[in-house]
């Protein structure tokens, strides 16, 4: 195992200000093991007393090689890797991936499967925002928020377990539909708002911090709630509808303040919009098949495998060899809880992808951090970092 290298200030010369070299300002490491960095992120801070002069994020502590691993697997098997990418949003990652595969091989998806996907992705968005809200509370020392949010998250995870058999890493969406049909079988947001929205302590810690204007946000490629809190109305569910989102009636919350509190308000409003979408999708959930009938890509059902030798062989071949995809390059993008999650998939005519590349929202959203924290206190840095909602698995992949 390699040891941690001792570094000298000479190596940081170009990153920090002149005053750090003379010892006038202090360099401080925040992380990789720090409760407020939401994972293994290291922030090199240059401090003038309590005030942040410079903030240099150091990423890669969770680099997993997911893109490379996916290229060594067949199209069906590579999907399990996407779950573990942004681990707060496995359903959304699955969706981006299966949509890319479907685009690549031109595979149809039944209406029922599309509606199921929308319901589960929106539930996942709520679960992800709940963890976000809970950990923002925790960072600002409101421990009860964390306990309440995880209580609600368990309800959603119970639904995931019911449909897919797993709480987190579901791999429930498959190219051409979903794995199997759902078995035949409320909201406490007001309470949360009561706890935080007008809470003077919370307002003190949130208002007017880390202001991000729309031009900077766009130039850094910031997406998701962080961008919408800066006054840009951009949501892929509206702008480039996928999986039947155009049928649902929902609003995209947009605020113009661009501070930490605006990002909080956008998240809170998104809870309500997601619930609206789920309700509509449940009301119009059609009956019918849940995956495509195209047997070139979708394995035969269990009931056929028991009675037909051909189906058994077909199932075996499909899972051991995979299916070939044409020599083409596709890009599919979804609106994940954090922003635009894009996946570039390049086929080479064989059963394995030639190149997988991910455009992950957390990565771009983090890049703007060093721009907006300068001049704030270290304690405020915690609130700002929490508000832009990063997931290290999403950044480092």
């Amino acid at each position, binding site marked *: 195992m390699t*040891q941690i290298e001792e570094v000298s200030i000479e190596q940081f010369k170009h990153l920090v200000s002149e005053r750090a070299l003379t010892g006038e300002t202090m360099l401080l490491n925040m992380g990789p*093991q*720090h*409760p407020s960095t939401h*994972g293994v992120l290291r922030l090199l801070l240059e401090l003038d007393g309590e005030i942040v002069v410079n903030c240099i994020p150091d990423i890669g502590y*969770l*680099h997993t090689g997911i893109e490379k691993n996916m290229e060594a697997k067949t199209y069906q098997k590579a999907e399990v890797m996407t779950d573990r990418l942004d681990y707060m949003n496995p359903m959304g990652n699955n969706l981006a991936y299966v949509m890319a595969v479907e685009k690549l091989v031109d595979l149809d998806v039944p209406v029922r499967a599309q509606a199921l996907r929308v319901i589960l992705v929106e539930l996942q968005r709520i679960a992800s925002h709940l963890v976000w809200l809970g950990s923002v509370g925790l960072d600002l020392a409101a421990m009860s928020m964390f306990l309440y949010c*995880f209580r609600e998250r368990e309800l959603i995870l119970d639904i995931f377990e019911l449909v897919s058999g797993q709480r*987190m890493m579901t791999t429930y969406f498959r190219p051409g539909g979903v794995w199997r049909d759902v078995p035949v079988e409320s909201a406490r947001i007001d309470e949360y708002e009561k706890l935080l929205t007008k809470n003077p302590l919370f307002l003190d810690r949130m208002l007017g911090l880390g202001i991000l204007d729309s031009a900077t946000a766009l130039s850094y490629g910031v997406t998701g709630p962080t961008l919408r809190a800066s006054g840009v109305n951009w949501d892929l569910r509206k702008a480039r509808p996928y999986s039947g989102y155009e049928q649902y009636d929902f609003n995209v919350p947009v605020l113009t303040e661009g501070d930490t509190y605006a990002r909080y308000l956008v998240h809170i409003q998104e809870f309500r919009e997601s619930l609206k979408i789920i309700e509509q999708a449940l009301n119009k959930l059609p009956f019918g098949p849940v995956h495509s009938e195209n047997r070139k890509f979708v394995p035969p059902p269990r009931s056929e495998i028991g009675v037909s030798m051909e189906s058994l062989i077909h199932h075996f071949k499909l899972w051991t060899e995979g299916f070939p995809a044409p020599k083409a390059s596709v890009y599919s993008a979804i609106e994940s809880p954090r922003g635009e999650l894009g996946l570039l998939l390049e086929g080479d005519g064989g059963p394995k992808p030639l190149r997988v590349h991910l455009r992950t929202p957390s990565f771009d959203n983090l890049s703007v951090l060093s721009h907006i924290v300068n001049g704030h206190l270290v304690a405020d840095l915690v609130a700002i970092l929490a508000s832009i909602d990063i997931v290290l698995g999403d950044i*480092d992949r």
Partner: protein
Amino acid sequence: MGIEQKLGDMGVVTTTLENVVNWSRTNAMWPMLFGLACCAIEMMAAQASDYDMSRFGMELMRASPRQSDLMIVAGRVSKKMGPVLRRLYDQMPEPKWVIAMGDCASCGGVFNNYAIFQGVDEVVPVDVYVAGCPPRPEALIHGVLTLYEKVNKEKFKDLAEKYG
């Protein structure tokens, strides 16, 4: 409620020092507040309302390794993180224990590639391995209880040999 209510009129309890020390260690084992990846979310869930690890004297997650007894390695350990993890382990006061939570920390899991340690036991000694990807909070709690069984069997003599 004090010990009198628990024990009634039993008067005197005799036991060995080893038993008392081990019993107290298992009832106030402070884990380090340290998450790596997906498993960390399930570790948080284990701490939160539904599963409530404070039943086992673990409500206090310490952010500083110098105040913690137990390191739960929750997630995949990359080549860049390995040395940091080792430094954290070295900073923990003795006696200390390690739980490898999940498949990645136990054996590399699905990530058999250039970036990930194939099991955190390449970096630090592990006491209990918890299987699952990610393990349910119940599985983690089972892992903790398994560790308690192990701690209860510990002898001073062995600890002296282990830590010198």
